[in-house]
């Protein structure tokens, strides 16, 4: 996925010089019957994966109609009878919903603010390193947190921020009183975003580092002749060179804006920190599984998913109109 920006037709991924692709066959439109007779073996390979998508991806989408119907646990998976927009009205008038909605936006915005630019910065810094082994070492270390289960990350966060943990040792060192960080709403966002930065920034550099190697050396040469300093070269040559990658990743980041770290919040929050930590997805989780209000939760989930889709589509559209880069 991501990064580079060929129009949809399958671009040859290998270096073009290595194996020039034959010109595409002139496409003859065959009828379905002919296609089936000719390629039935190929189609047969697609049957199971297609079933997977239909049952476990598309059926739940249809299952969202329980957001408009009364649902009885153990009853039909499509609910019992129509109730129209009742559940939507319910959460639109629910003050808690707007509280968690705001929290989601704030947490999403903070995550975007830090987790999108920092990999670019780190990649630029790494790109200036000449000692290959040192560069390799920093890269390897910084990728590592990406491979940890979110449960392990959450457990580490709890250890680090506990009363006897490293964070409070620091607090005591500067003469403060220990803070129960995870019990205090005002600390949650800081903790969440820092752990997110810790886990994702290193891994996020990979695509940028790859893109950096594709920036044309001649452009640097030209900039140098024009007397551009290093900084100006970075600004005027390097950054425009990796802009397609940046835009693509930005669109993808925006797409996951609404779904902010559901699992991590679920692991790290507690009733004391709900005022800042509770997000739409965790709220609907509690509505569904603790209050057993499936239809209500499904309505919230559908709302969330639609917003997510709208965000991706509009980000994609805007970037195509303005910078000419898009996902599809």
């Amino acid at each position, binding site marked *: 996925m991501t990064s580079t920006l060929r129009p949809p037709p399958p671009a040859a*991924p290998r270096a073009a010089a290595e194996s020039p692709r034959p010109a595409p066959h002139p496409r003859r439109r065959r009828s379905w019957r002919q296609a089936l007779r000719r390629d039935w*073996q190929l189609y047969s390979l697609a049957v199971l994966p297609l079933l*997977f998508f239909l049952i476990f991806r598309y*059926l739940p989408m249809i299952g969202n109609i329980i957001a408009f119907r009364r649902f009885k646990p153990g009853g039909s998976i499509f609910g019992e009878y129509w109730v129209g927009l009742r559940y939507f009205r319910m959460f639109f008038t629910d003050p808690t919903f707007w509280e968690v909605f705001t929290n989601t936006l704030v947490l999403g915005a903070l995550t975007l603010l830090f987790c999108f630019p920092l990999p670019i910065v780190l990649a630029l810094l790494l790109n200036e390193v000449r000692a290959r082994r040192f560069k390799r070492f920093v890269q390897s*270390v910084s990728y*590592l947190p990406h491979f940890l289960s979110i449960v392990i990350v959450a457990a580490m966060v709890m250890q680090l921020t506990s009363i006897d943990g490293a964070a409070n040792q620091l607090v005591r060192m500067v003469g403060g009183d220990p803070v129960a960080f995870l019990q205090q709403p005002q600390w949650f966002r800081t903790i969440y975003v820092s752990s997110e930065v810790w886990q994702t920034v290193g891994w996020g550099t990979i695509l940028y580092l790859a893109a950096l190697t594709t920036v044309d050396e001649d452009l640097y040469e030209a900039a140098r002749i024009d007397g551009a300093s290093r900084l100006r070269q970075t600004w005027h040559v390097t950054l425009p060179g990796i802009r397609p990658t940046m835009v693509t990743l930005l669109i993808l980041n925006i797409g996951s804006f609404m779904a902010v770290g559901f699992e991590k919040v679920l692991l790290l929050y507690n009733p004391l920190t709900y005022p800042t930590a509770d997000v739409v997805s965790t709220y609907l989780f509690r509505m*569904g599984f603790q209050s057993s209000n499936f239809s209500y939760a499904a309505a919230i989930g559908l709302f969330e998913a639609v917003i997510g889709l709208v965000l991706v589509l509009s980000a994609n559209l805007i970037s195509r109109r303005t910078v000419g880069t898009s996902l599809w």
Partner: protein
Amino acid sequence: MVILGTKSDAPQTRGPVDSRGYRIFRVVNTIVLIGVVIVTLFPFLNIVARSLSDEAYIIAGKVSLVPRGFDLTAYKLVMSDAMFWTNYRNTVVYTVVATLISIVLTTCYAYVLSKPQLRGRGLLVGVALFTMFFSGGLIPNYVLVTSLGMKNTIWAVVIPNAISVFNLLVMKAFFESLPTELEEAAAVDGLNTYGILLRIVLPLSKAIIATMVLFYAVSFWNSWFSAFLYFDRQDLLPVTVYLRNLIAGATSAESAAADADKVQAAATFQAVTIVLTTLPILAVYPFVQRYFVRGVMLGAVKG
């Protein structure tokens, strides 16, 4: 796009002589990057130190990077917990089964999608792509899995996540990069599609399959939420949920400050469990890291 095939360590020679400012920058840069390494590694070292320390020192807030009052009691306790090992074994079983199924499904579909002349290919791609940006959501998925009778069975954690669209696109990109001549020749020799896939394409795809195995295995190894949602019985849980229950219990104990002994035990217990669950990943990480990087790049080639 030519991301592949270019070395990411092309020597940077941008300018005959470095200016003074740039030399200073390079020193600062090195210091910053060392800082990144330290910040990244600190939590690991801290947890290891805590896991090896005497509880009394931990409670007193005296353990940071070096174990104090070296003590293996917590290790012995966790490792003598039969449920820990049951859950650990579950993780291994789920990971192996899920990875196998995922690889088969992903390979089949990716191979089909890589045939440009196939009628309906665009539709088949679209079916997969759309799910990247819109999903049914938690509740309908739960209702579905439950009504299929998959609750409290391994299938609940295996099947609903069988195909990752990202991995699918990576494999598709790889298959598209294979030269078509071999397959055409094999077809002339009378091999059917299955034969071509098994005897010609797959042997050429060992590297990408290894990468896919790693991608899937790590994600299944690390997953916890499906198991948390669909398993009621403790002996079915993977080790990630074992750890989750441990930390969830610890926070409620801490906030209630109920039982002092429990809290104390919790501190080292958690650290030990973290170490024991992270260990396998750390052990294989140095050897497999580059495959991951390669996989990500391959995925990046085609949006």
